[in-house]
């Protein structure tokens, strides 16, 4: 009896000790992870965060959320004061700048260790530098496709665009679709957008040009092909089969002009399908892949927001942050991203969710297959923000307003962009 009691006591002690040590050990493993969410839960699904918290009880998640503009204004000060989150996301080009300035952690080794890159689209490496550093992983990808207003095409008796279209086909169709009454254009064939993603960049790429060379250290604005692309865009606006800026502004912007049938085609970013669904649910429209370039290749410009891990976080926080990013790039979270419709995920398996969706545009494969076939970033590098502004200034002067010739603008752009690249 006594032996039994002694054995019971010893057993109890052992259980108590194990439990105590276990608790101490688990308490030691507790780590706090500060996640920054610009745009709050409007941009990042709350389900993903909640699911991560539920599956990782040893990570205390602190969310720092704010409207996009407020977050991006505040984050620079936070970095300066060393009070930034451990992991957050911003525009990919900004992340590249952070990498250059020592703010972002290089994720190349983490990716190599933990991810099977064959399961992802190339866009996973949007934040990779020519020397192999990876400053971030995508929060989501926003590619461009050729959207067309079916009603306008049917009324004009012009066949719908196809995936085999070239830019010459687009221009010819735009001419056929344009309607002028008296001197007033009432319908344009195509929206002559002039921003980088759906404006001048696809036009220079299709002509065989580019903004920078492959090393991202040389300006290519002196390349005759780059100039030819800009001239085609200018010509469309000047000759009146692409919209001009006055028309678009007076009629409520690109989407309104497209949805109201005042323009038949538009290079539309994936995220805008949500606006179209919400604001113009009755419009009959769809998308095809971006037209092919003169060399037969397809170039699909894509912009990304990318997550980064702060290089100044503690090792434990960095590990927890990577744990979060692994989760974000996993099947469950990527399926949630896919279902949101506001951005494309980077995991291939999630594309089944998108392609099975019954919302407009029905041919979402134009986006998903489009980036698989020819997804290109906007020649982003650490100084993208700076040189992009210089390019946009001259594009506005020449292509949009016709105040100077495209050749003059290209010469000015080339000089200034090269100065920025050399300076950095």
């Amino acid at each position, binding site marked *: 009896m006594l032996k039994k009691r002694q054995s019971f006591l010893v057993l109890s002690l052992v259980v108590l000790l194990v439990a105590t040590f276990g608790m101490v050990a688990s308490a030691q493993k507790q780590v706090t992870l500060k996640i920054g969410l610009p745009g709050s839960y409007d941009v990042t699904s709350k389900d993903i965060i909640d699911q991560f918290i539920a599956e990782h009880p040893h990570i205390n998640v602190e969310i720092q959320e704010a409207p996009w503009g407020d977050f991006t*204004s505040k984050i*620079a*000060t936070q*970095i*300066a004061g060393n009070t930034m989150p451990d992991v957050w996301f911003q525009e990919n080009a900004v992340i590249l*700048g*952070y990498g250059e*300035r*020592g*703010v972002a952690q290089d994720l190349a080794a983490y990716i190599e260790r933990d991810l099977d890159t064959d399961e992802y689209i190339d866009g996973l490496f949007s934040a990779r530098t020519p020397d192999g550093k990876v400053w971030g992983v995508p929060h989501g990808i926003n590619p461009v496709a050729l959207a067309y207003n079916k009603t306008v095409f049917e009324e004009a008796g012009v066949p719908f665009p196809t995936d085999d279209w070239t830019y010459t086909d687009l221009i010819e169709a735009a001419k056929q679709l344009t309607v002028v009454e008296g001197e007033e254009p009432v319908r344009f064939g195509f929206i002559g957008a002039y*921003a980088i993603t759906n404006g001048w960049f696809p036009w220079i790429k299709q002509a065989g040009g580019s903004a920078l060379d492959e090393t991202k250290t040389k300006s290519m604005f002196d390349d005759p092909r780059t100039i030819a692309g800009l001239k085609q865009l200018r010509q469309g606006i000047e000759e009146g089969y692409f919209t*001009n800026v*006055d*028309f678009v*502004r*007076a009629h409520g912007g690109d989407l309104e002009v497209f949805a109201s049938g005042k323009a038949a085609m538009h290079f539309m970013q994936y995220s805008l399908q949500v606006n179209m669904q919400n604001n113009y649910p009755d419009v009959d429209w769809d998308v095809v892949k971006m037209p092919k370039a003169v060399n037969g290749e397809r170039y699909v410009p894509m912009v990304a927001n990318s997550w980064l891990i702060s290089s100044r976080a503690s090792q434990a926080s960095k590990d927890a942050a990577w744990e979060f990013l692994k989760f974000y790039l996993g099947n469950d979270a990527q399926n949630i991203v896919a279902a949101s419709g506001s951005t494309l995920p980077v995991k291939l398996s999630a594309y089944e969710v998108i392609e099975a969706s019954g919302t407009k545009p029905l041919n979402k494969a134009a986006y998903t297959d489009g980036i698989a076939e020819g997804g290109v970033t906007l020649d982003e590098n650490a100084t993208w*923000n*700076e040189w992009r*502004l210089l390019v*946009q*200034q001259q*594009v*506005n*002067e020449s292509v949009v*307003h016709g*105040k100077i010739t495209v050749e003059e603008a290209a010469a000015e752009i080339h000089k200034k962009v090269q100065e920025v690249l050399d300076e950095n």
Partner: protein
Amino acid sequence: MHKQRYWGYVFTFPFIINVLVFLLFPIVFSAYISFTKYDLFNAPKWIGLTNWINILNKREFWLSMRNVSMFALIFVPLQTSFAFLVAFMLNQAALKAKSLFRLFYFLPVITPWLAAGVVWSWMFNYQYGVLNWFLGLVGIDPVNWLYSRSWVVVIASIALVNVWKGLGQSMVILLAGMQNVPHEVLESAQIDGASSRQLLTHIVFPIVTPMVYLVMILSTISAFQTFDVFLGLFGGITTGISEQSMVPNIMIYRDAFLLFKLGPASATAWLLFFVILAITLFQQYFEKRWVHYD
């Protein structure tokens, strides 16, 4: 007495701290970083006069100074004279519904630039804008107000919008001055046969010259620091405000907070400060010749 002085220091201490931390320190620090390479994330690195020399050699800086000078030349006289005339009219005893008129003139002041910018950019629209429509009615060719090949047209158009926006504020200051003009003086002048124009030029204007001077100084400073009107009309920095339409404060904001080049941004800010200081001193030099405080 000593005890009273002690309590004086105690009570002013929070304000002294406030001035030191939020006024003096930023001024001194911005002067320091204008001599450094500083990206906000890494420690400033001393580079001497490089930022200053680079800015002074930059075409964009001189274009921005040209633009802002023209902007001030158009804006300050127009704003001051219109505000003076409107204040004089609204100060007439015979005028009915004064408060309503004052409200109308003051409304633009409280209109956010974001909304005002959108409305004015529509009105300035080359093909579809209401201003060119009016010109068309009288047989005048449309004007490309914001994107003209002539930079003077662009700056003048923007200055006019700024006059519309700022008129109310200057009017309030001048109206306050005019309401202090003694009625007896005006009445006796009228009895002596002074006309309305003589009342305005020989009595009201000399008495309110300190207010006019204040309005001119404030308008000049705000003209050289202009920012919102350009941003509102051109729709933002990232959409690409052209070099021909650039102003110093937009350069400063862009360099500091979009490109994280705090050194050049600070140097530009200091150069702008010196220009404003010089012009203010110039105005002060002539103050005694036309401003009457007695």
